[in-house]
């Protein structure tokens, strides 16, 4: 038996020799992982746990001694949990409205559009507009004559993050509600069940994996969010990412920042691993058996439909209002003091913000291209090839994505601020931060798509004499193109809008639109911030439209038949 195992090990080695392309690809990727993923995390832990060359908890203890930091830890967990719950509930309501109600097509399109808006907006958008509406001199406050109200603190942060992150829950839950078999509805009703009972005993239990997954995703997003609490948290409601940011940028305390990052890293990794567990279990929804005629979902009980209708209307109206207010805010002289129309903020954006616009575009484009290529290669290798250390390879590839952006940003400045890896102040460090965080969507899209494609297609190419590289470029890539492009789309959006990691890495040489928005906000230049936001949203929107067009083009011709081949087995 032992001999057999040794034989197998040897065989793996032979496989690497047999597939030199795979071998060299793996070597290159491992080196990249080593530099841009493992080294920074390692250096972060070193900074947090090594004092004078000896392992020590002194740094952590020092940080934990401050009651303010304890409050920040508590605040982070409280915020993430509550946003996780409210975001999932709201996402579920929207998903039900789109998949289970008789709302006309255009109504559903509006709801879907409402959920896309926060995804393509910079992370401050809702905080800015909430400030404009409910902050000092807030529009709604003036309208209703409310005094002594403050948006700053837990409730404002919670509201803003819920509106920002519920679309994540919506996407996850909508997908799972759509893949359920409508035959189950028919079966339940034909067995004498009422619509309430059907909802309680069939629809909700079957969507539990989606609910769990979306709670974890929203929890993780809120835990990592840095921009919203920075603007809306105020002094009364500290959270870890903002505290770490202030420690580093205000007090230049790298060790303290690293220790706080560690406190943030632990729950983030737990959530990441739990999420993998939820996804790892095979969803029973996909096993629907062969269904006959396609039927439609039977709809919801009337009372529930009414509640869903009211919630969706209010939330949609509020989201639209928040975006309208930003648009309006970008055109007035001084918000709520002098409401005369002006172009001056846009003039400012295109004069003084030109560098930020061009830098952001350049960094986003380079990151998108590199990240897509890396995403394709990693997704392909993990889905199709076997090699030693594959599980660790997979885990490593997603580590930066799993960690909160603040942690990654701090890890990067610690790791790359001295020779020979002196990268702070360069474009490289910004691109690397984006690529190794946001290529995750691409990796997942590519492996999901490959799972649908019969390996026999690649074997056919090899058996016809094509090498593994030609097979990859001529057969695999064209088949997974739609998935690649959808990964690319999210990569581009993230590179344009994300801030939590890169806020630590910008410099006089390279700056970003999102950091300009933040600067305007901290200088209380609300109108300027609004104009920057509008420009950013328009750029992202245009880029996104182009990407969606490409996806449609690439998936038109043969996508159907790919599915057929895959499902034949």
């Amino acid at each position, binding site marked *: *038996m032992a001999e057999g195992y040794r034989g197998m090990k040897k065989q793996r080695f032979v496989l690497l020799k*047999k597939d030199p392309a795979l071998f060299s690809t793996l070597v290159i990727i491992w080196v990249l992982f080593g530099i841009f993923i493992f080294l920074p995390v390692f250096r972060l832990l070193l900074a947090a746990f090594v004092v004078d060359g000896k392992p020590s908890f002194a740094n952590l203890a020092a940080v934990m001694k401050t009651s303010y930091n304890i409050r920040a830890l508590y605040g982070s967990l409280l915020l993430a949990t509550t946003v996780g719950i409210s975001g999932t509930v709201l996402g579920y309501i929207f998903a039900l409205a789109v998949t289970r109600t008789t709302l006309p097509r255009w109504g559903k399109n509006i709801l879907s559009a409402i959920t896309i808006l926060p995804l393509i907006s910079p992370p401050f958008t809702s905080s800015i507009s909430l400030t404009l509406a409910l902050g000092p001199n807030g529009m709604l406050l003036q309208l209703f004559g409310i005094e002594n109200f403050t948006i700053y603190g837990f409730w404002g942060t919670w509201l803003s993050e819920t509106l920002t992150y519920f679309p994540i829950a919506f996407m996850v839950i909508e997908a799972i509600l759509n893949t359920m078999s409508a035959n189950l509805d028919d079966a339940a009703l034909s067995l004498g069940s009422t619509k309430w009972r059907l909802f309680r005993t069939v629809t909700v239990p079957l969507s539990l994996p989606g609910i769990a997954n979306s709670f974890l995703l929203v929890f993780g997003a809120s835990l990592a969010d840095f921009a919203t609490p920075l603007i809306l948290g105020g002094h009364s409601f500290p959270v870890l990412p903002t505290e770490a940011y202030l420690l580093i940028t205000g007090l230049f305390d790298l060790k303290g920042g690293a220790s706080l990052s560690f406190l943030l890293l632990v729950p983030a990794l737990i959530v990441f691993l739990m999420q993998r567990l939820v996804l790892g279990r095979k969803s029973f929804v996909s096993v629907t058996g062969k269904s006959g005629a396609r039927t439609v979902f039977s709809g919801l009980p009337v009372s529930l439909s009414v509640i869903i209708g009211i919630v969706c209307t209010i939330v949609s109206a509020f989201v639209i209002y928040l975006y309208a207010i930003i648009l309006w805010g970008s055109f007035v002289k001084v918000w709520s003091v002098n409401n005369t129309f002006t172009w001056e903020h846009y003039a400012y954006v295109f004069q003084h913000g030109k560098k930020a616009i061009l830098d952001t575009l350049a960094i986003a484009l380079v990151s998108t291209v590199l990240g897509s290529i890396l995403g394709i290669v990693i997704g392909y290798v993990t889905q199709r090839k076997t090699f030693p250390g594959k599980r660790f390879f997979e885990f490593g590839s997603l580590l930066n994505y799993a960690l909160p952006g603040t942690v990654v940003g701090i890890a990067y400045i610690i790791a790359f601020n001295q020779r020979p890896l002196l990268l702070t102040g360069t474009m490289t460090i910004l691109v690397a931060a984006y690529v190794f965080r946001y290529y995750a969507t691409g990796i997942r899209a590519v492996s999901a798509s490959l799972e649908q494609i019969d390996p026999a297609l690649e074997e056919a190419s090899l058996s*016809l004499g094509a090498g593994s590289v030609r097979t990859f470029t001529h057969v695999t890539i064209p088949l997974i193109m739609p998935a690649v492009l959808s990964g690319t789309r999210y990569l581009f959006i993230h590179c344009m809008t994300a801030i939590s990691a890169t806020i630590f890495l910008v410099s006089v040489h390279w700056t970003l639109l999102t950091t300009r928005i933040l600067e305007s906000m901290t200088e209380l230049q609300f109108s300027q911030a609004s104009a920057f936001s509008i420009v950013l949203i328009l750029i992202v929107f245009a880029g996104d439209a182009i990407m969606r067009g490409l996806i449609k083009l690439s998936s038109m011709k043969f996508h159907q038949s790919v599915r057929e081949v895959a499902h034949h087995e």
Partner: protein
Amino acid sequence: MSSEFALELSDVTKIFAKDRGEFRAVDNVNLQVRQGEMVVFLGPSGCGKTTTLRMVAGFETPSSGAIRIQGKDMTTVPVNKRGIGFVFQNYALFPHMSVFKNVSYGLKARGEGVEAIRNKVSAALELVGLSGSGDKFPNQLSGGEQQRVALARVIVMEPSLLLMDEPLSNLDAKLRLHMRTEIRKLQKHLGITCMYVTHDQAEALTMADRIVVMNRGKVEQVGTPFDLYNAPRSLFVADFIGQANIVKLPVVAVDDVNVTAAIPEGGTLTARCAVSDGECTPLRKGDVAALIVRPESVGVEFADRAEKGIRAVVISAIFGGSDVEYQVRLADGSMVKASVPYRNGMDICREGSRVSLVIEAANCVFLPVT
């Protein structure tokens, strides 16, 4: 350089790691395939036939043993350097390429000229009866047409060895019968050596020069369809190929090649021993031997009209057009199948009739009971 054998497998073994231990998917397989021969690997699912084929193709590497193609050791040569052609169960046509592009794919990878490619592709498409379909996409073709494109795509490469993995299993019954003869005709016409995997014994019998029966990773028997049907060397082969009655009888006498056994109601029956090497048989007087009787070697007559034979009761009689399929029960309770050719005006023995069975000993063989 042409070798005596197109394909040689020597002690080929494949071990897969499995939970806690290992699984011998293919166990010590030896085989020599002559030029132009059509060898069909037959066996139940999981018997190792497809793994063997995939090792010959180069998709899997043997754990031990050697594979030689045209005399050259190919054991660890990657698939794209072996010069083989592989036809997949689900055709594996590239869905994003037209028929022409699919068929020209290998030629292009090989770097052939545009003109040569065009000529070869149209010749191949004509050969499979698909001239003029070059611009279509795979999803515009029927299952049978897709199968032909898959064939053309392989043939156009003029491979030294054609490997086919259950290529007909996705076709409907009628088309499957038709494609059997098509593929066999094409293979003979091109004189190409072919290794074909199937779990359908009728397909194997009609298409093969030689059949390799596999079971649990091991080769059970290699032989012509005629040999396997008429002289199965194990109960597994007897049972797997065609229909067989396996009747256990006590041996009363043996000689060099023949075994004589007592039949329940008196009398004896003498038939060849299939595992005899001409000098002796492993069976001895007093052993229990298994008599392999094909249903068509059993005659059924009404008991009152027959002079001799084994008494039995009809359990079911199914009229199938060209013949009548009987299920009968012997006195000791064992069941026997009989297939009697139907001629006009013949009396069919109804359920419950007492009948007498006549066994044509010349068409039967004895095997040891294992």
